[in-house]
């Protein structure tokens, strides 16, 4: 299927804050209204709505109602974290291309009731987690610190290499007024950061915030008549191994991207070298390291040098996370990466604009599960 028969025509978001005091429904409604306004559309044009969540209350049903719709047609609430953002975007494009909807809103919202880094209440745990959660091993930073440790053992990568990723993201966030963390970060400050779970320090973890992001998609034909230049999904790929159980993934020095990258590049006829921008999913610095290697930007173990040499920023080979990513712009579960890709490909990013941006890779996920999508300014002929 040619995903570029659809296009992103509107983007919107709320402020990203530490504690908004607002509900997810209200935050989502604000971002969606902004995205529709950006597209020059109104809520009554919307006949499809989708999000991903882990069960939080701002469902497409409640949110579509909140923006004034008395009924909604195509609606999907995907039970997922950041691992399926690219899939949700591709599904929205597919719904349009297959005629199931004409205008689809994709959104993600996080409010202060949703935090992933800590478990504070008494819990009973089933499923795969029943075996290790009782031993104090239950949250994602722990799972992926395991992977980073393995990479350091096998390839000799270092905490300084992880720091180079955090520093690069932060340098970009300094210029981004929307970012939550804008203090410049030096290697010294990074290394002084408190340990969370070795080998992760505080700067290796995504910055959890309240906020919402929304994108509006419609057909490529209809997109031509709307307010902004359309941004086209060129191709997408998904892949999950080990049944989605992080501890069972055979080689933790690589991630889902080991499966997804060859699939994505084969489908699009593109490669890492073609990308102007790479919005790499960065729940943790190590996620960038492993997936960046897997997508073919550099060889295993070379990410630290690549970032230190300035190849991952303006004037280098590819600009990685020009918004600051989840580490510094804020943890909007990866949908803010898609917002940023569109913003850049429309060439509206101001002082942060990546010169001549034509193509952007956006990855989603970490460990055994994830996907990726390529967006372009031009529709492939």
């Amino acid at each position, binding site marked *: 299927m040619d995903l570029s028969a659809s296009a992103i025509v509107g983007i919107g978001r709320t402020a990203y804050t530490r504690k908004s005091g607002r509900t997810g429904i209200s935050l989502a409604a604000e971002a969606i209204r902004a995205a529709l306004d950006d597209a020059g559309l109104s809520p009554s044009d919307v006949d499809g709505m989708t999000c991903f969540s882990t069960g939080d209350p701002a469902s497409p049903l409640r949110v579509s109602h909140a923006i004034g719709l008395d009924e909604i047609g195509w609606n999907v609430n995907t039970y997922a974290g950041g691992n399926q953002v690219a899939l949700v975007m591709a599904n929205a494009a597919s719904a349009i291309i297959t005629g199931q909807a004409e205008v689809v809103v994709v959104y993600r919202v996080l409010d202060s009731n949703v935090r992933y880094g800590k478990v504070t209440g008494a819990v009973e745990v089933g499923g795969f987690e*029943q075996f290790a959660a*009782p031993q*104090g091993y239950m949250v994602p930073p722990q799972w992926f610190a395991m992977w980073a440790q393995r990479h350091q053992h096998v390839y000799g990568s270092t905490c300084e290499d992880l720091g180079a990723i955090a520093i690069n993201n932060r340098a970009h966030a300094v210029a981004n007024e929307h970012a939550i963390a804008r203090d410049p970060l030096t290697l010294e400050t990074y290394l002084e950061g408190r340990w969370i779970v070795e*080998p992760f320090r505080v700067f290796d973890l995504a910055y959890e915030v309240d906020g919402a992001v929304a994108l509006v998609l419609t057909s490529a034909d209809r997109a031509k008549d709307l307010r902004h230049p359309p941004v086209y999904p060129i191709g997408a790929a998904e892949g999950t191994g080990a049944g989605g159980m992080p501890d069972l993934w055979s080689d933790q020095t690589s991630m889902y991207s080991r499966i997804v990258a060859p699939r994505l590049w084969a489908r699009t006829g593109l490669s890492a070298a073609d990308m102007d921008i790479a919005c790499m999913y960065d729940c943790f610095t190590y996620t960038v390291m492993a997936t960046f290697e897997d997508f073919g930007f550099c060889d295993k173990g070379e990410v630290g040098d690549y970032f230190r040499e300035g190849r991952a920023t303006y004037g280098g080979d590819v600009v990685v996370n020009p918004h600051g990513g989840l580490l510094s712009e804020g943890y909007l579960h990866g949908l803010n990466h898609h917002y940023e890709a569109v913003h850049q490909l429309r060439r509206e990013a101001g002082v942060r604009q990546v010169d001549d941006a034509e193509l952007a890779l956006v990855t989603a996920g970490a460990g055994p599960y994830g996907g990726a999508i390529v967006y372009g300014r031009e529709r492939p002929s």
Partner: protein
Amino acid sequence: MTTVDWSQLPPPQPLPDADSAGFWQATANGELRLCRCTNCGHWHHPPLEHCRRCAAPTAFEPVTGTGTIYTFIVQRQPAVVGYFDQVPYAVAIVELDQQPGLRLTGRVVDVDIDEVRIGMRVAARIEPLRGGEFQVPVFAPVAVV
């Protein structure tokens, strides 16, 4: 409203299911048993009712619990209920000797956490879990002979 002291809450308690019941019954008896295919002999963790390779029924069989640390973490900041006052502690993914890729995750005990290494030889030991009737396997280093 009463104030809850989160630090006094117990660790997460397992919710056994039909496939995992044999694992928890064994640990309750102080034994480590893992799920194994009655036909092809393949070990499974997490347990399954039928083998994912040949679809034959499985059964729980005792294992030595010896293996090698594939990777590990040192938890420094309180993150999981029941362990807020236990930091720092080490957790390892252990590849068991029975079969390549057969992994079990648990705390590493009886060793200075700064001494934990990938490749370290360890053996499982069954310990009570605070806050209920369950027992869990933890790992202690074994001397290499």
